[in-house]
């Protein structure tokens, strides 16, 4: 199933859902000036499950959301392939918007995934970005 199809599915079980916010991340064709041929994602399976569950639980303690779903792909992807889906449902839109952004910001800095790009200049591991840490820091209370 295309990742976006999951968003529709998430709304079908609970009649108190008044808002569904979803985010889909795609592989870009150019990163830091280099043309990306493929992007390969490695992860730490046992830790990934725990880390994603912890991020969802934290979102549920901070906002009044009904449910959430995270799907993250691993392995080799091409430009425009979908990497990640986050879906959040809530009664009202504000909570779902905030929780969805929070989950993505934490996922990018706390979940054990690593990207390796294959470009015309060769293969290299993608470096972590300070801007991602700054995005996460916004949520500190």
């Amino acid at each position: 199933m295309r990742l976006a199809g999951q968003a529709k599915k998430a709304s079908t079980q609970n009649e108190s859902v008044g808002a569904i916010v979803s985010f889909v991340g795609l592989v870009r064709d150019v990163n830091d000036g280099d043309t990306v041929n493929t992007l390969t994602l490695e992860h730490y399976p046992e830790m990934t499950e725990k880390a994603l569950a912890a991020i969802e639980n934290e979102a549920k303690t901070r906002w009044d959301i009904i449910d959430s779903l995270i799907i993250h792909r691993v392995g080799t992807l091409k430009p425009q392939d979908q990497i990640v889906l986050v879906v959040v449902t809530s009664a009202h839109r504000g909570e779902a918007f905030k929780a969805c952004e929070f989950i993505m910001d934490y996922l990018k800095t706390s979940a054990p995934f690593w990207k390796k790009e294959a470009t015309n200049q060769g293969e290299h591991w993608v470096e972590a970005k300070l801007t991602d840490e700054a995005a996460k820091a916004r949520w500190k209370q």
Partner: protein
Amino acid sequence: MNIKILYFARIKEAVNYSTEEITLPNDVSTVTALKNYLSLRGDVWADLFNGKQVVRAAINHELVDNLASIKSGDEVAFFPPVTGG
């Protein structure tokens, strides 16, 4: 004590294996001590674990800092800052 160590991403490629079971001396009981111990294995290891590179650690699948204690039977993982999403 005996522990399992896992390596990921560029660290795995640099040391050229992904997992090992290792018996540690009794005084190697924190993440920092383990990094120092591994850095004695040679140049590649020293470059990774002498503190100049950012190497994150997890114990039993939880992210930890350098002061965290290691117990017998733990699964310790070393990896670079994450880049998912």
